[in-house]
């Protein structure tokens, strides 16, 4: 019977943490790009954009992420595509992130005073110029704290990818538990690892938020 030390457990978890970080970044950046496109479609008042994007957001915010992962995994394979857990997880998390980010950012754009739109339009700026030089910078300022805060949600979301077989931190934890028969220690270490990943980002988001408001 091999005796595993806490360091052994940590070491193996750390190796798996790479995948958690990678998946989180892919989902966050990919989701950000998709979310931005959806946002601009809404702002530009493209036909049906408001209803479609609104429905899209409602769908992802009103259903469990676990179901979204299952659907990505089993859905894609229906189309004959041999889907690895990686691809399914990346797809599901990217779409999930895009829905939440587009909604967060929509709120930030709405927070920009209507007068800013009016003034820039009166100066004959077109939509692209309004967004780039007037509205965008102001919305961006307000958007940074909640966007950073959502990264924490994405990291926590990657834990669910373990259920469809993707080997990240949580899956590794389950496997290590089975190998070491020390579930209490392993799951405690697992929680601490997520905490180590998420807490600094949460704290950063909070400090950004208070800097934005000047006082608290």
């Amino acid at each position, binding site marked *: 019977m091999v005796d595993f030390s806490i360091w052994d457990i940590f070491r193996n978890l750390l190796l798996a943490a790479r995948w958690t970080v990678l998946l989180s970044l892919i989902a966050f950046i990919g989701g950000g790009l998709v979310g931005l496109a959806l946002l601009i479609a809404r702002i530009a008042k493209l036909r049906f954009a408001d209803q479609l994007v609104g429905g899209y957001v409602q769908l992802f915010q009103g*259903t*469990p992420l676990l*179901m979204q992962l299952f*659907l990505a995994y*089993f859905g894609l394979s229906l189309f004959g595509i041999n889907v690895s857990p990686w691809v399914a997880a990346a797809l599901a998390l990217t779409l999930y992130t895009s829905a939440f980010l587009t909604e967060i950012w929509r709120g930030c754009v709405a927070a920009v005073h209507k007068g800013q739109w009016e003034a820039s339009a009166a100066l004959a700026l077109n939509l692209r110029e309004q967004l780039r030089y007037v509205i965008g910078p102001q919305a961006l300022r307000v958007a940074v704290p909640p966007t950073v805060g959502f990264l924490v949600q994405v990291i926590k979301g990657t834990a669910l990818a373990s259920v469809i077989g993707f080997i990240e931190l949580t899956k590794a934890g389950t496997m290590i538990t089975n190998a070491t028969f020390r*579930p209490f220690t392993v799951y*405690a270490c697992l929680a601490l690892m997520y905490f180590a990943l998420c807490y600094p980002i949460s704290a950063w988001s909070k400090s950004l938020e208070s800097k934005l408001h000047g006082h608290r």
Partner: protein
Amino acid sequence: MIAFDFPAVLAEWPLLAKGVAATLALTAVSASVGVTLGVACAWARLHGAVWLKAIVGAYVELIRNTPFIVQLFFLFFGLPGIGVRLSPETASVLAMVVNLGAYAAEIVRAGIATTPKGQIEAAQSLALSEMQVFTRVVLPPALKRVWPALVSQIIIVMLGSAVCGQISTPELSYAANLIQSRNFRAFESFIVATLIYLALAMALRRLLNWAGPRFIFGK
């Protein structure tokens, strides 16, 4: 052309119904106990002794910065390592309560912190005790202020309960998994379950937005 077979899934509606009932039961218990816990923690963070503030603060930060599935697995798989064995249902409710409690604590704390000072002074001047000031004058308007955020969080926890199926709690996602393991209609099973979750989320939001003013904070 892919052939979908939804009737095969819908034929299993008794299983789905049982799953829905379990999901709703889990949510109902967790919501009531979790929000109460959150209110208690919010009070502790604002008025409690230094050591209590520290414990509550640590609890809130720990829960908010770890995934729910890890919290659930810790309770169900981890605790047996020190001799504590919980049933799937108990572990699920406990995990959901602990989870919601932490988020509710932050939400309610924000609501309480924006109480106008004059309200508290008026209540104190009327000789109300500290607890009476808190429960009768500070809390109802605070809950009203943060109700949308609280409702959203309850729905998030309800949707998160889907994970509890992984430890064999017989809720909706477990039912969907069971159905697809029998008829191999994975996609259809999960689509149906997902749509049911969506309907539950919308209904729950309506219900809570109606119940809040009616039963909790008046007007």
